[in-house]
């Protein structure tokens, strides 16, 4: 006895089995990402400062386009199968897979940028002020507020409004790059290697969310400063342990990227087995594309919310 309704819909529900299955699965996915979104909201509401402009918006926008395009191509693939144009459908399916790969590739570049971007903090006000003077030529309030704006990516006015006065230099977290752009360096690792100094390239001031009139100071861009290890109390890349913002950012986008990769694998399977499948059981193949497409649209949907929430707000 074969299992009924694997291809043709059941009369009273109007659905074939896999469609019921995928929608149930998507319901559980809604709860999975819903829980993470809830966590995001809670962490953000509870945080004294929430970083705002630390992600690369042009790249994020482009990646959003890539994912939207893949969503259209997969629905076009299904529509063409319905019309009987297998070859055209195959092209659309191929495009979808390419978009998926493109999305993951771009995301990798973005991740890489974060893993080579560093934050340092000094042992005391004196060493910190000396560093500010060397890096930016000044340690006055404007410089410190520019550094602060880099840490959280927030505009100056917000720093002042929220903090009343700026933290003393030793609490400032100065952002920049290490010479040679190494990944995942930590104080512990440097100490284990007996490093005595590091070469730090601080970011230009006010790199975060731009405000009118707060233009970055090009004169001090990419200046190399040698810092003694003994003067540092903190050094971390923009990794998940940097703060809860990056923790939730990497968790949400990482989980989303895992979904993209999973979806791409399924599409690749459908792509390579497609012709024989289509000749043998066209209706079943069309259904499989529809089901895979539903999953793919959901992945797109999640990104539609992730993008503004993580990049823009």
């Amino acid at each position, binding site marked *: 006895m074969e299992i009924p309704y694997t291809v043709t819909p059941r009369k009273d529900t109007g659905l074939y089995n896999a469609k*019921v299955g995928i929608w149930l699965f998507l319901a559980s996915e809604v709860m999975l990402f819903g*829980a993470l979104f809830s966590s995001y909201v809670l962490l953000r509401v509870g945080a004294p400062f929430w970083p705002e402009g630390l992600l690369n918006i042009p790249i994020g926008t482009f990646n959003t386009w890539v994912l939207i395009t893949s969503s259209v191509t997969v629905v076009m693939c299904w529509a063409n199968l319905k019309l009987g144009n297998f070859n055209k459908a195959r092209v659309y399916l191929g495009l979808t897979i390419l978009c998926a790969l493109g999305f993951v590739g771009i995301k990798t570049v973005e991740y890489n940028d974060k893993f080579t971007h560093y934050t340092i903090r000094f042992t005391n006000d004196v060493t910190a002020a000396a560093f500010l003077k060397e890096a930016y030529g000044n340690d006055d309030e404007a410089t410190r507020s520019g550094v602060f704006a880099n840490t959280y990516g927030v505009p100056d006015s917000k720093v002042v409004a929220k903090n009343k006065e700026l933290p003393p230099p030793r609490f400032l977290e100065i952002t920049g790059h290490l010479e040679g752009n190494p990944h995942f360096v930590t104080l512990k690792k440097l100490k284990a290697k007996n490093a005595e100094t590091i070469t730090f390239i601080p970011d230009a001031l006010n790199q975060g969310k731009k405000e009118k009139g707060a233009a970055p100071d090009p004169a001090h861009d990419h200046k190399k400063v040698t810092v003694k290890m003994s003067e540092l109390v903190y050094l971390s890349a923009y990794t*998940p*342990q940097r703060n809860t913002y990056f923790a939730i950012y990497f968790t949400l986008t990482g989980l989303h990227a895992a979904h993209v990769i999973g979806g791409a694998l399924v599409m690749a399977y459908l792509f390579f087995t497609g012709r024989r499948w289509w000749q043998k059981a066209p209706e079943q193949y069309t259904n499989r594309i529809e089901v895979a497409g539903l999953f793919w649209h959901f992945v797109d949907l999640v990104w539609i919310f992730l993008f503004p929430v993580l990049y823009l707000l």
Partner: protein
Amino acid sequence: MAATHSTTHTAHEAHAHHEPGFWRKYIFSTDHKVIGIQYGITALLFLFFGFLLMAAMRWQIAYPGEPIPVAGKIIGWLLGAEAATMIPGGIMSPDLYNAFGAMHGTIMVFLAIVPLAFAAFGNYVVPLQIGAPDMAFPRINMVSYQCFFMGGVVMLASFFIPGGAARSGWTSYSPLASMADLTNRVDGQTFWLIGMVLLITSSLLGAVNFIATIIQLRAKGMSWMRLPFFVWAQFVTGFLLLLAFPPLEAAGVMQLMDNVLDTSFFLPSGLVISGQPVDVSGGGSPLLWQHLFWFLGHPEVYVLILPAMGIVAEIIACNTRKPLWGYKALVHSVLAIGFLSFIVWAHHMYLTGMGTKISTFFQTTTMIISIPSVIILTALFLSLWGGSIRFNTPMLFALAFLPMFGIGGLTGLPLGFNASDILLHDTYYVIAHFHYVVAPGTIFALFAGIYFWFPKATGRFMSEGLGRIHFVLSFVFMNLIFGPMFLQGLAGMLRRMSDGGAAYSLAQNPGIEGALSDAIINLNKGVSMAAWGLGLSQIPFIINFFWSIKHGKKVPSDNPWQATTLEWQTPTPPPHGNFAVEPEVHRGPYDYSVPGAKSDYSPQNQSH
């Protein structure tokens, strides 16, 4: 016409289909019945293992600081190098006690009861009861079992890694869960989380499969209100698993990040351990973990109990020889429970200092959810009225379920009110309450189910004599274990103390008001004896189970209990594909003693 088509099809298949080999038939099977049995046997083994953990802990509670006779040596030998710190000289260390406690809870809930109640019985019985040839997605079904099995292996393996198994309770509250073992990077908690992610994946796949099967594969004429109550219970349970588990999966991923990648999702700022500030960014929320955990945790309670109610309903209807009282009310109640169980979770968290408004909200929903539960229990009790009851072993267990679940449920009310919960929170009263629901409640229903469906799966009855011995001893010992715990809890004895409350006893704190009296402390010994007695009373069951597979009394027909539901209208044991003729349903599930009918039962597929 459909019938002829399917017969020819089966005949055709019988010719074309050669017998699959051992691996395909028993290990990588896609047949729902084989998978059901796989789940059942694995879960029973875990049930026994979870019990053994507790049996060892009960020694430490009753005789704190004394070496465990015999078992202490065995545990030490099993733990190998870790034994020196974990169980020095056969004395259970607090760390080992905590590990056993956490794993007892985890194993019992996620590896024993849920797989047994939902997956094993669900897999075996649901497709048969709705007249389906198999589950909707047989391969996903197989993967679901494999994920479950791997999850179990990971959990078991965690006992033997450096530092031992997770030891922060089955609830794994942060920051304790991330900080309990600071010496090992990959610790028991990491294993616990990986194991949980596998188990959750398994549950999700299972839930999708069950719901899709019930929606799509009901036989012709099997309308929603003709479904046996057990199928309804499984349907709602499926939705609970489907929608409540993902938030815990999210939380599990986040805690895994906290443990392995040093994030601070659940770690607050300014965390200091042993006088040392912890090297994390902070800014996380420990309460967030509790919310996400209990968002699953509470529906999980109903995952444990609903299938049990379903089993009991089937057995009561069959053995009273009359229709269930209030079938519609039962169905609506089970739907209401499913719905409400999602919005009561924070009654586990009254002591986190929540405000009065939100406490009142959760207190109110908690009181409301007790209404459908009471309706179900009442309907089952009323079903007995005027029946000609057959007191066979499954019925004895099913009947015992009713008062046991009643005690468990009613003692939950004081915990649902936040004023009284402040007194009772985290005491043995809580332990007694939920064990009454799950142990003599759900487990009795599961035993009833095993005795009831065993003849369908094997073609032989289990021994009635051994079954009765098993029942009487289990019933007595269960009550001797959990009854006294109410008293201990009311006296203020806290749970999760590795010395059984000795540190707070009057003996060690003379003259302190509110310290635990000797009488309360001494109950520990009696409870422990009863627990070990309960273990021994399972021997008749184990013998019965294996002996009856080969030597039990053969069933006289395919329908030995003269039951109405479809699983009894198949060959015994049901072949691959289940039904010889595609069944067509003509009546409701409980047409017992229909006036004017030829016999006192009218199977669902009987047209006249």
